[in-house]
C-alpha cells in the first residue's frame, strides 16, 4: 500500500464536502490496517477497476450521515431527507472516489467504479478484501468520516 494514495482522497473529500455540504473537512489521522473493515456503523463500499484496483470503504456515524443528507437537500422535508440519506452518502462517496481516481491513475487512463453499496449496523462481516489498507480519518464541525483505501496497482 502506497502512502501517496492518501492525498488524492484527502483533496477530493475536502472539495466534494465543501461543494455539496459546505463543510470543511480536515485530516485528523492516517494509519495502516490489515483490511478495509470499517469502524463506524454506516459504510459505503466502492470497487475500482483499471490500472489501480481494489476497494474503498467509507464509514461514518448515523447522525453525520443524516447531516450530510440534510445539507445536500436544502429545503426538503425531514422525511424526504431521511429516505434519501443512503443515496446522499453513496453519491458523496462516488464523487470523492471519482475525483481521487483521476489523480491516482492519471488523466489518460480509464478507471471504472462499481456502483456504491451502503451497509448499516450489523451486516459488517462481509466481503472485505484482505489487502493492506490506508485508513484515513477526516473531521468537520458536524462529524467525521473514515476512508479505508485498499488499492493496488495492477493490469486489469
Amino acid at each position: 500500500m502506497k502512502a501517496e494514495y492518501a492525498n488524492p482522497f484527502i483533496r477530493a473529500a475536502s472539495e466534494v464536502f465543501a461543494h455539496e455540504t459546505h463543510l470543511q473537512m480536515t485530516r485528523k489521522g492516517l494509519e495502516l490496517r490489515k483490511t478495509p473493515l470499517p469502524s463506524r456503523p454506516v459504510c459505503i463500499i466502492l470497487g475500482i477497476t483499471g490500472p489501480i484496483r481494489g476497494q474503498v470503504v467509507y464509514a461514518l456515524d448515523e447522525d453525520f450521515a443524516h447531516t450530510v443528507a440534510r445539507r445536500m437537500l436544502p429545503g426538503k422535508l425531514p422525511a424526504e431527507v431521511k429516505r434519501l440519506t443512503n443515496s446522499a452518502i453513496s453519491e458523496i462517496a462516488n464523487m470523492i472516489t471519482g475525483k481521487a481516481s483521476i489523480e491516482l491513475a492519471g488523466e489518460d487512463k480509464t478507471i471504472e467504479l462499481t456502483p456504491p453499496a451502503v451497509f448499516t449496523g450489523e451486516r459488517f462481516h462481509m466481503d472485505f478484501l484482505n489487502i493492506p489498507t490506508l485508513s484515513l480519518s477526516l473531521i468537520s464541525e458536524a462529524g467525521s468520516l473514515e476512508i479505508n483505501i485498499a488499492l493496488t496497482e495492477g493490469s486489469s
Partner: protein
Amino acid sequence: MRLKTALIIDDAAVMRMRLRDILEPHFDVVGEAEDGEQALSLYEACRPDFVTLDITMPKVDGITFLQNLLKSHPDAKVIIVSAVGQKQTVFKALTLGARDFVVKPFDPERVKTAANRLFSKA
C-alpha cells in the same frame, strides 16, 4: 410554447431529485430511470427531447446505454452527468455521440446551460 421534455437517468435518488429541481422550471421532466436497462424502455415509452445520463450505474452502465440508444435513435440528445470525469471517459462518451459532459459535483448553472444549448439555434 410546449416545454422540451427530459428523462433523468441516475442510480442515485438524490441526484435525480436535484437534477429534476434544476431542470423543471424550464423543461418538462417526463421520467426518471435508475439504471441503463430501465432507461431504455422508459426512453421508448416517453421519447424525451433529451436525457441526462449517469455513467456508474448497476445492471447496464451509462456508456453501454448510450451505445444502445444511439443505435436505434441516432439523433438522441444526451448530456452525461458523471463523477467519472477522466479525459478518456469524456472523450469516449463524446465520440460515441453524447452532446455534453458535466462532471459531478456540478453547479446547477452548468447543467442548465448544457440543456439550453441543445436547443439553441446558434
